[in-house]
């Protein structure tokens, strides 16, 4: 086990948008991430699949600093933060500032949408523009409106979340993350809470985002067909570790590991 920070492998190469280095995370006794390392290149679309409890969502939550690992480093672009024995000696204050900076480069879409129920769709999307970016109300509203049009909700600006369908709510959530133009977007099982007939519209929005350009995406999903079509690379995780990774063609067509085969067979029989 690596314990001396100096023995770390060389930092992720140039062009890496996100990297996790030897990240350990446990909830109580349960090990969720077991020294996981992962590098995502800039512009790359990575899909993470695996059984529930395999730690795939925790990977995303650690990148967003919603979870604090016991050990390891998280890189986003040129910034990184360390945890446990990899933690620098910065003050609490400077560390918070680093976390805020890191989050500024990353967008996150949650399984449960987590829209703000007391705000209209427009205000949900414009909030961070105003409060984080310091953009004035009029300009923020215009940007937010543009982002909502992009996800096909130009006619729902004044709607409150409870007046929207699950699919529409999730599209607002995507607009809310995208409007900040993050370098990296993280999607955490974004269709798992949706009625089946609403899954398509949300996946369609993500696919369009992926086609538009150089945005890096890490997508945790149970939608295998979607993963196959959108991802440059598919990662199969189990018990807090990466079991196998490769191109979608290879992972879905000709997986090497027994556990990957078992998982894919179980999923296809559902």
């Amino acid at each position, binding site marked *: 086990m690596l314990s001396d920070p100096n023995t770390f492998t060389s930092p992720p190469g140039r062009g890496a948008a996100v990297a996790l280095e030897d990240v350990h995370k446990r909830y109580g006794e349960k090990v969720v991430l077991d020294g996981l390392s992962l590098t995502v290149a800039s512009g790359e679309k990575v899909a993470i699949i695996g059984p529930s409890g395999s730690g795939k969502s925790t990977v995303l939550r650690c990148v*967003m*600093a*919603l979870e604090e690992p016991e050990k390891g480093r998280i890189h986003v672009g040129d910034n990184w933060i360390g945890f446990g024995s990899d933690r620098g000696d910065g003050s609490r204050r400077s560390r*918070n500032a680093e976390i*805020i900076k890191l*989050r*500024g480069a*990353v*967008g*996150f879409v*949650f399984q*449960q949408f*987590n*829209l*703000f*129920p*007391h705000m209209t769709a427009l205000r949900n999307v414009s*909030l*961070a523009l105003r*409060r*984080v970016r310091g953009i004035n109300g009029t300009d923020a509203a215009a940007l937010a409106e543009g982002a909502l049009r992009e996800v096909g909700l130009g006619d729902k600006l004044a709607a409150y*979340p*409870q007046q929207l369908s699950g699919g529409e709510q999730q599209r607002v959530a995507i607009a*809310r*993350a995208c409007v*900040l133009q993050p370098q990296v977007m993280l999607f955490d099982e974004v269709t798992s809470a949706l009625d089946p007939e609403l899954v398509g519209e949300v996946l369609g929005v993500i696919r369009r985002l992926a086609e538009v350009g150089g945005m890096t995406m890490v997508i945790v999903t149970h939608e295998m067909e979607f993963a196959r079509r959108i991802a440059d690379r598919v990662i199969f995780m189990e018990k807090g570790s990466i079991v196998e990774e490769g191109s979608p063609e290879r992972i879905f067509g000709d997986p090497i590991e027994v556990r990957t085969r078992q998982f894919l067979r179980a999923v296809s029989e559902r």
Partner: protein
Amino acid sequence: MGTAAYLWSVRSQMAQGLVITLEATGAGMAIALTVGLGIAVIRVLKLPGLSQVARFYILFFRNTPLLVQLYVWYYVLPQYGIVLSAFLVGVVGLGIQFSAYTAEVYRAGLEQVPRGQWEAGSALGLRTAAILRSIIIPQAFRPIVPGLGNYLISMFKDSAYLSVVTVFELLGTTEQLAASSFRYTALFTLLGVIYFSLSYPASVCVRVLERRAARGRQNALRS
């Protein structure tokens, strides 16, 4: 002079007393709402050190009588050079005492906002203060309005204690009038009617708000 004629003759003193009661309640509630929110936020954020102080503050003020606190503010503090006017003592005393209660109401409200709301704010890059102000507190507030309303009514009634520190609010005024006219029955009956005719409608309002809040929760669960 008949009873009715007597009561009519003291109407302006009684009205003056009522105004002071309402002022003390309003100002006391303003303190209770502000300080209580601060205490609740400290507890919810579990700020090291401060959180324990806040806990003790709540314990202390919930477990000592308002009357004793008022005596301390009014008779003991001046011995240490802190002299406050009777009205100010009353307002601060009420406000501080009730802030210990409102803090717990606020805390319940803050804690029932789902964790996902904090996370969504964090993921957007908002700092803790901005998350609280824009996202958490507005959502915490609505369901606890009835609870706060109940304490407003309690405070309105407890403001009668202020008469012991020489504030001439409703009770103080009534006592003063009775001491010179000896019309205790008439004056105290009127006093009861005044308190009741304000408290009861207010409590009906709170019940309506409670029912509405419960409906709101159901709607939120359904969506």
